[in-house]
C-alpha cells in the first residue's frame, strides 16, 4: 500500500512501526525449537478426522494415518502358487546374514521360525504369478473389531465394535479411489456377562469409554448398536497411497526397488524424512516393519512384495512365531512388533499374521500383554486381542465398488 501522504524526507509510518516491532515479537527469536518439535510430534500422533480413527490411531501409536479403522489389505491374490521351495534370489542376500541359516527351515514346526522360510515361497510366487499382476482397481475387504472398557468404576463392562470395510484403489489415469468403512457396523457388550452389566447400568445408548489421547487419557461417547457406513475418496490426484511421510502414485509404486537391500535403503531414506517417526532402534524397527507390511498389501510388483518380507525378516527386535491363528481362525506365522505400547487397557503389542503358503498378510492385531486393573475388571486378560483388522478379500477388479445409499461422506 502506497503512502501518498508521505512528506519528503519522512519515512512511511508503516515502516516506522515495522522497525519498532519489539524483539520479543520477532518470530525468529521467539521460537523454542524443542517445544516446536514436541508440539508437532504430539499433534500428528493423533489421526485427523473422525472419532474412531482418532481412537485407533492413539491405540496403535501409528504416526500418520489420515484414517484409521480401515482396510487391512493383504498380499496380492496373485502371489499364490507355491511351486518350489528352494528357489533363491542369489544377489539379494547379504553374505553375512545371521538369519539365513534358518532360511530353509519350514514354518509350522511349532517353534520360532524366521520369515525367511516363506521368503522362498514368495520368491517362487513372484516367478509364478506375474500374469494377474495388473488391473484397474485394487480392492480389499477387511473385517475389524475393537474392544473397549466402558461404564463406571466397580461396574465396568467390555464392549466390542465390529465392522467391515471395502477399499478400492483406482490405479489407471482418471480412476478414483474409494473407501467404504463401517459396513455392518455394530457395537455391543462383548460377552453375556458384559451384557448383564450393561443392562444393570440401564442399557445406556451411549457408553463412556476411556481412550488414550495425545496427552494422557480422555473420554469419548460410544454409541451402542448399529452404525451407518461412511464413504470417502482416498486419492489425492494421482497419489494413491502413503509410504512413510510420502504420498505415492501407482507409477511410484511400480518403480519401487525389488531387492531387499535397495528396498531397505528406500525405506530408511523415508524414515529419515519422517519427523514424526518413532526413534531408537526398536522404534525404528517398528516403523520399518509397519511400512514394509503396508507395502506388501499395496499393488506392488510381486518381487517388491517378496523384498518387503525380506526386509521385515531382517529387522532387529522383530520376533517371528510359527503357527499362530489369526482372529478369524486362519493359521499363519506371527510377526510381533518390537515395541509395546501403554494404553488405558494396559500394555499392548501389535502382531501381524502372515499365511506362509500364499504370502498373504492375513491380519493385524493388537494384543494385551499386561492388562490394566480397569481391563481386568471387565474380564480382559493378557493375551486378549483388543483390536484387529483381518483381510477377507483382496484382488483386482475392473469396476469401482458401489456406495451404500445410507453412507455418510
Amino acid at each position, binding site marked *: *500500500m502506497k503512502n501518498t*501522504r508521505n512528506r519528503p524526507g519522512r519515512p512511511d509510518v508503516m515502516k516506522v512501526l515495522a*522497525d*519498532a516491532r*519489539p524483539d*520479543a515479537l520477532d518470530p525468529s527469536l521467539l521460537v523454542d525449537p524443542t517445544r516446536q518439535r514436541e508440539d508437532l510430534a504430539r499433534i500428528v500422533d493423533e489421526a485427523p*478426522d473422525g472419532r474412531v480413527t482418532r481412537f485407533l490411531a492413539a491405540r496403535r501409536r501409528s504416526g500418520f494415518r489420515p484414517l484409521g479403522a*480401515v482396510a487391512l489389505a493383504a498380499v496380492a491374490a496373485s502371489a499364490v502358487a507355491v511351486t518350489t521351495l528352494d528357489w533363491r534370489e542369489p544377489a539379494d542376500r547379504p553374505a553375512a546374514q545371521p538369519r539365513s541359516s534358518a532360511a530353509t527351515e519350514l514354518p509350522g514346526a511349532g517353534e520360532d521360525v524366521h520369515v525367511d522360510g516363506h521368503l522362498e515361497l514368495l520368491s517362487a510366487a513372484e516367478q509364478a504369478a506375474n500374469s494377474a499382476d495388473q488391473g484397474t482397481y485394487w480392492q480389499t475387504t477387511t473385517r475389524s473389531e475393537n474392544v473397549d472398557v466402558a461404564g463406571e468404576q466397580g461396574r465396568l463392562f467390555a464392549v466390542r465394535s465390529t465392522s467391515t470395510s471395502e477399499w478400492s484403489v483406482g490405479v489407471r489415469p482418471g480412476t478414483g479411489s474409494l473407501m467404504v468403512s463401517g459396513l455392518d457396523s455394530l457395537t455391543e457388550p462383548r460377552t453375556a456377562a458384559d451384557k448383564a452389566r450393561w443392562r444393570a447400568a440401564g442399557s445406556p445408548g451411549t457408553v463412556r469409554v476411556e481412550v488414550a489421547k495425545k496427552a494422557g487419557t480422555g473420554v469419548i461417547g460410544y454409541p451402542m448398536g448399529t452404525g451407518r457406513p461412511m464413504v470417502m475418496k482416498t486419492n489425492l490426484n494421482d497419489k494413491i497411497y502413503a509410504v512413510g511421510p*510420502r504420498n505415492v502414485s501407482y507409477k511410484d509404486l511400480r518403480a519401487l526397488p525389488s531387492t531387499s537391500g535397495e528396498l531397505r535403503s528406500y525405506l530408511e531414506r523415508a524414515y529419515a524424512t519422517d519427523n514424526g517417526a518413532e526413534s531408537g532402534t526398536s522404534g525404528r524397527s517398528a516403523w520399518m516393519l509397519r511400512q514394509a507390511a503396508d507395502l506388501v498389501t499395496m499393488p506392488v510388483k510381486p518381487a517388491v512384495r517378496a523384498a518387503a518380507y525380506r526386509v521385515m525378516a531382517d529387522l532387529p527386535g522383530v520376533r517371528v512365531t510359527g503357527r499362530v491363528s489369526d482372529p478369524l481362525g486362519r493359521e499363519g506365522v506371527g510377526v510381533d512388533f518390537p515395541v509395546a505400547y501403554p494404553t488405558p487397557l494396559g500394555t499392548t503389542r501389535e502382531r501381524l499374521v502372515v499365511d506362509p503358503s500364499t504370502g498373504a498378510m492375513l491380519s493385524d492385531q493388537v494384543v494385551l500383554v499386561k492388562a490394566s486393573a480397569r481391563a481386568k475388571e471387565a474380564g480382559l486378560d493378557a493375551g486378549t486381542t483388543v483390536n484387529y483388522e483381518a483381510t477377507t478379500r483382496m484382488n483386482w477388479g475392473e469396476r469401482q465398488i458401489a456406495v451404500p445409499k445410507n453412507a455418510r461422506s
Partner: protein
Amino acid sequence: MRGRRVTHAQRFRDVYEECYPRVLAYATSLVGRQTGEDITSETFTVAWQRVGSIPRPALPWLLGVARNLVRELRRRDAHQYLLAAEEAQRISSGARTDVGDIASEVTDRHDALQALASLPEADRELLTLIAWHGLGAREAAQVLGCTTATLTVRLYRARRRLEKALETASASRTASASPVEAPHPTRHEGAPA
C-alpha cells in the same frame, strides 16, 4: 490398517515449519509468550484436524484460527485471559528493563510504540497485522473476516491516526527534558474483538 492411505502429513509439516514462528509471534502479541505457545499448539491441532483443507497460503487462515482461539479463551476464562493479555501489552509496548537507554534508534522505537499504544484496539490490531506480522491487505482482511475494500478504508484511517499520534509522541518527548519512558499499557482497551 495396512496399505496406507495417502497422507497430508507432508503438507502439514511444511506448513508447520514455515508458519509456526509467525503464528507464535502473532499469538504472543495477543496473549504473551506462554499462553501464546499454547494457542499456537491448539491452532496447529485444528489445522491437523482439517489437514485436507488448509487453504493456500496457510498463514492468514492460521492467524484467523489463532485469533478465534484467543477469543474463545477470553470467553471461557476471563481471568487467565486478562493476565495473558496484560503480558502481551507489556511485550507490545516494548517494555524493557534497560530504561536508561536513550540511543536515538531506541527513542524512535519508543515514540512509535507509544503512538501505537494510544490508538484504539481495532487500529492497533490492523496496523500490527501488517507492520509486524507481515500480512498484505488482502491477507489481513482474511484474518479479520472483512472484505479487502473495508480493510483498505480502515487501514487508511488507522494510518492517519498513527501518524498523528506519532507526531504527538515525538513532540512530547522533545518538549520534555527527561528520558523517554516506556509507554504504559492501555488497559482500557480489551481483546481483539
